[in-house]
Structures are given as structure tokens and as C-alpha cells.
């Protein structure tokens, strides 16, 4: 969803917007390489960088952001006419477009669809199509032909979204299907792209037009979803012998060692998370007193049962350790955490937010010094949600 934002006020002093920096950087680079004939510099020389405002801007050097949006939307190269959507794009240079998925957001000079702020009336079923603009084609739910059954009728009246009215696909949303392809239309055996799909195959970006539960290709860890234990865990995988993902990414280094299953030195499950008061690792929010007073100090949440076992009282300093690092935090004893019984064994869990660091209005230890560099096999997201640690009163 693209939602156009207007500035509330001009930036104070020498502050400048992100577009200002990007535009000025591009202009300087183009100037630097303008005289170059080296092939490697021709990218700069051929770069189209025409965002100069027609009227002098209130802040000198600001680009015309609507010109940027126009380039993202796409236009006819010769006439500069705005394109209405990606179906108008050509691969012969006669059209220019920065990003096909956004094509259609700015179909005419006076129609910035991302700036629309018109919700559907209360109580009226709809997709709020006049609020902002969603890619692609202002469609709000992808593959929405699947909201209707094979005959094209809604699965339920309450959840109706897109359906076949006898002539075409209609509904609250922009249909994600060939508009006039009837539910009973057969696919063309030699057809290319959508033509090969029948009226019963809603997943139009898949080669076979159907959703997959069994995914033999595409995923590193298919074909079925299953349960693996995390890379570090106090228990054996209760589902089958394969303990954890055989294709997980583990960067094997001395400072990235993993705890073996059931190692008594690190008996507790730990999870890390965010608080609403801080942003990511806190580099920005730790400087804002209105936020730091709300969450001033790093803490570790633990159950009263574990606190009693370890002789830890609320607000005591606690030492948390893994083979990767040792940090300190204040104890927040709460019944929101509770001991699990897994395979007959009592397993304690602790939790820590990770917003602190060594600089800011408030400071604290870095929780990611505890985590292991273990990545999921598809997108390498690191596994900071479940690992093991030890907890001692500091």
C-alpha cells in the first residue's frame, strides 16, 4: 500500500529531506563523470536524473517528488504521457518505468492515487479502494479469485469478496484474474502464461495455477511444512529423529558455538523480542527522553518459580550467558512466564527485549551478544526467537 505523506513543516536549519540528499548526490556524481569516456562510467552519463522543479522550491535544491513518482509510475518515452498501468509497458524502449509493480499509481498529472484518503462508508462492505493505492493494480488481496468456489460463487455470503456475475469477475476488490474468463472456461493446451490456465485456477502466478501444500520446488526446506527444533534446544525433537533443519545456515566460528541438546550448563530457553517503546536495536529511540522514561532499563523476564530456584528477587541484577556472550540485566519476575513440562521434564523459559546499547539517554547491555548466527535456509533470517542460556544472580 502506497500512502502519500505531506510534510508537516519545513525542516529546521540545515536539515534536509531524504529526496534532497539522493537528488543532490546523483547530480554531483553525474557532474563528476560527465567528461569521462570510460565504459564503466557511462551508467552515470546515461542516467536520467531530471527532477528539477518547475517552480523554485521553498528549500533550495529539493527535487520535484511528483516527477520521481511519475518515473516510478511509467510514461510514454516520446510524449511523456502517464501510463495507466503495467499492461501498457513495452519492452522496446517506447515506455519508461522505474518499477512495474507500482505502475498505475500516477495515471494522470492530476491523479496521484497514493494521496487518496477516502475510506468506504462505515458499515458498507468494501476494500477501501479509494484509500491510497496498493500494488499491483490497486488490488488489495492477491489471488482473490480463490474467494469464490469453482463455479465462481462466493464460498460464504459473509466472506464474499470477488465473484463471477455471469459475464465477468466483479466484487469489492480489483479481481486478480482475467476479467472475462468464465469459471468453466478451459485452459488452452498450448497457451502461454494466463492463457494456459482454466477458469478454475486462481493462482495465476504459479505455472499450474493452483495453491501448493506440497512444494517440490522453490523452497530450500520443502516439500511439506514440518516441525524442527531450533538450532539450540533443551529437548529432542518429539516429532521424529531429525533434530533440526538439515539445511539451516550456521556460520561455524569459535565465537559462534552452539550448545548441544540438553547441555546442563545452559538449561533455560530464552526468547528475544521488541517493546513498543523502542525501535529495533534502540539506536534512535534511546535518545528520546519521552521513550526512555517509559522503558528505561534492560530487563530479563522470568517466572517466580525460576526466580525462587535461583534466589533471584524482582529487580536484582542477573547475569545471562551463552557460549557467545555474557550480559547483565535487571530481573522482572512475572507470572506471565511459566515453566513448561516437556517430555516429562520441567523447562524454564526467560525473555529479553533487545533495544539497549552503550549510547543514548539510557544505556544497557546488548542482548544480541547472546544470540547465535544461525540463519533460516530460505532468507537467512537469524534465529533469535528461541535458543538456550544460563541465568545466575549477578
Amino acid at each position, binding site marked *: 500500500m502506497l500512502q502519500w505523506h505531506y510534510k508537516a513543516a519545513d525542516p529546521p536549519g540545515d536539515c534536509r529531506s531524504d529526496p534532497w540528499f539522493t537528488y543532490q548526490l546523483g547530480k554531483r556524481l553525474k557532474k563528476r563523470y560527465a567528461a569521462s569516456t570510460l565504459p564503466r562510467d557511462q551508467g552515470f552519463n546515461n542516467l536520467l536524473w531530471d527532477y528539477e522543479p518547475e517552480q523554485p522550491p521553498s528549500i533550495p535544491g529539493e527535487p520535484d517528488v511528483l516527477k520521481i513518482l511519475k518515473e516510478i509510475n511509467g510514461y510514454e518515452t516520446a510524449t511523456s504521457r502517464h501510463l495507466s498501468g503495467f499492461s501498457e509497458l513495452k519492452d522496446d524502449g517506447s515506455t519508461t518505468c522505474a518499477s512495474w509493480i507500482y505502475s498505475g499509481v500516477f495515471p494522470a498529472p492530476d491523479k496521484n492515487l497514493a494521496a487518496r484518503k477516502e475510506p468506504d462508508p462505515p458499515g458498507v462492505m468494501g476494500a477501501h479502494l479509494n484509500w491510497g493505492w496498493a500494488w499491483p493494480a490497486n488490488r488489495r488481496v492477491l489471488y482473490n479469485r480463490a474467494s469464490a468456489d469453482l463455479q465462481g460463487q462466493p464460498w460464504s455470503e459473509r466472506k464474499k469478496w470477488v465473484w463471477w456475475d455471469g459475464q465477468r469477475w466483479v466484487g469489492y476488490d480489483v479481481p486478480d484474474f482475467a476479467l472475462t474468463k468464465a469459471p468453466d472456461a478451459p485452459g488452452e493446451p498450448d497457451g502461454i502464461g494466463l492463457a494456459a490456465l482454466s477458469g478454475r485456477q486462481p493462482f495465476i502466478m504459479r505455472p499450474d495455477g493452483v495453491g501448493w501444500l506440497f512444494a517440490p520446488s522453490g523452497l530450500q526446506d520443502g516439500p511439506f511444512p514440518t516441525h524442527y527444533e531450533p538450532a539450540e534446544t533443551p529437548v529432542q525433537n518429539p516429532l521424529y529423529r531429525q533434530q533440526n533443519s538439515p539445511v539451516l545456515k550456521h556460520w561455524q566460528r569459535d565465537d559462534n558455538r552452539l550448545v548441544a541438546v540438553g547441555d546442563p550448563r545452559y538449561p533455560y530457553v530464552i526468547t528475544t523480542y521488541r517493546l513498543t517503546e523502542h525501535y529495533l536495536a534502540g539506536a534512535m529511540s534511546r535518545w528520546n527522553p*519521552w521513550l526512555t522514561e517509559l522503558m528505561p532499563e534492560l530487563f530479563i523476564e522470568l517466572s517466580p518459580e525460576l526466580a525462587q530456584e535461583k534466589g533471584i528477587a524482582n529487580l536484582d541484577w542477573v547475569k545471562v550467558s551463552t557460549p557467545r556472550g555474557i550480559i547483565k540485566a535487571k530481573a522482572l519476575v512475572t507470572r506471565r512466564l511459566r515453566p513448561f513440562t516437556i517430555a516429562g521434564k520441567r523447562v524454564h523459559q526467560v525473555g529479553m527485549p533487545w533495544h539497549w546499547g552503550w549510547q543514548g539517554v539510557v544505556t544497557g547491555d546488548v542482548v544480541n551478544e547472546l544470540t547465535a548466527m544461525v540463519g533460516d535456509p530460505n532468507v537467512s533470517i537469524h534465529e533469535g526467537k528461541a535458543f538456550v542460556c544460563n541465568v545466575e544472580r549477578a
Partner: protein
Amino acid sequence: MAEAMGFYTDTTVCIGCKACEVACKEWNQLPAANGGVRELSGNSYDNTRRLDGIHWRHVKFVEQFSADRRDGRWLMMSDVCKHCVQAGCLEVCPTGAIIRTEFDTVVIQSNVCNGCRDCIAACPFGVIEINPASGTAQKCTLCYDRLQHGLEPACAKACPTDSIQFGPIRELRERAQARMQQLHARGEARAYLYGADPTFLGGLNAFYLLVDKPEAYGLPSHPKLPTRNLAFSALWSTLGAVVLGLFGLFSLRTRGDVVEPDETSSGTVDERERHV
């Protein structure tokens, strides 16, 4: 007066994000306590601790978990000045700094307040405190400046779940009734409205939907006004005055009896001074 305006806070949809607290501070330019450097309170996720002169919104976190965790809920409630129709602070303010606005809200005018603190003791909800920046008593103004320009208060604007709703009290009460009935129908029999009843300090212009007794949220079941003592105090004062008056009369009569013969027999200066 325009229609009475206020807050309806549905605590069942509060997620404890504290956006109301930050929005309030930003709009009203209230400083952070100790420059933002505080100690962890150790009381759930609440580090604000209480309403005071620089905290006009306070999200309370109430953890209710049985020892075996079979029963468990984490109550959250964004507390604020109740803008009572019968307001204790307004009753006691000696300078007239506390006024009732055209929106039926209660506002302390900082430029009239002399910092005497009477209102702090008079408020049954512990809402008011001295703002160290101004040296005067301060609390939620229900964003009087925003209301005058047709804007809703900053906290209600920022609330992502509409737990804090702003509007005409009459409408809010209807909405709150409907919500309460909806919760009852869904089996949450504990839901009730706190302060929506006109017999409750005349009705609170910031009322709540709660799911436990008021004390669980740190609210009084029976908030009391300073004027509850007015009749008795007046009676005692009158009685006291009468007694004193009689005492004086009797004293004077006694003096007259004793002094008269003294004066005829031209007593010493010492004796006369003793009777002055």
C-alpha cells in the same frame, strides 16, 4: 454551553502501547521525568508509576495470573483526569484557577494557579500534582486548545485500537452501553461501566469500561468530595462561633461586675492593665 465532551476508555481493547502517553507529552510539551533516565519500576511494564504534573496519561498494567496459570489475564488501562461533573479540585481552588470549560471539562489555568496544592489533596483519583517546570498544579486539560479548534485530544487521536474514544458524553455512553452488552453476550459477564452513571460524582466525563472491581485498577469504588464535610463543618463552625460568642459575652459581663467598683476606687495602673 456546548455539549459535554469527554473520553470513553474501553480497557478491553487497550494493548498497552503507551502511544497516548507520548502523544500527550508531545502535544502539551511536558518534560520527561529526570530527563528520561529512570530506574525500572519492576511493576510489569509500567514505568510511569502514577499520574502527576508531567504525566497526564498513565497506562496501568495489572497482571492477574493464578499460581497454576490456568487463569490469566493482563489488564491494561490508560488512566487520565476524570473531568468530574462534581469536581473536588474545582470546589477547593482558592484562586479560581480551576475552571469548567464550555465543553464541560475541568481545566487548571496555569497563569492563575498559585501552587497552593489544595486541589492535589481534594482530587479523589490522585490525578493532580505540581509540574516542576511551571511550579503550578497541572493535569490533563482534555486538550482544551485542540477542542477549541475542532480537533480531538492528542491521546485519542494516537490510540491505535480506539481504546480511548472522544466525543459527546451522551453518544459515548450509548456506545459504551452497547459494547458492554456485546461483551456480556459473549460471556464476559464482568464487564461494566465505571463513572458513566450521573450519580457518580455527577458522572465522569472520562469514564471507563472495566472487567474487574475498581480497586484492581487502583480506582476508588466510592470517590468522595471535599464538600461532603460542608454541612457538618458549617454546623460545627456555627456552633463553635456561638459558643465562643457566648463565652465572650459571659467574660465581658464578669469583667463589668469586677471592674466597676475598681474604677470608682481608682485602682492602680497595674490593675487596670490586667483588665484590658
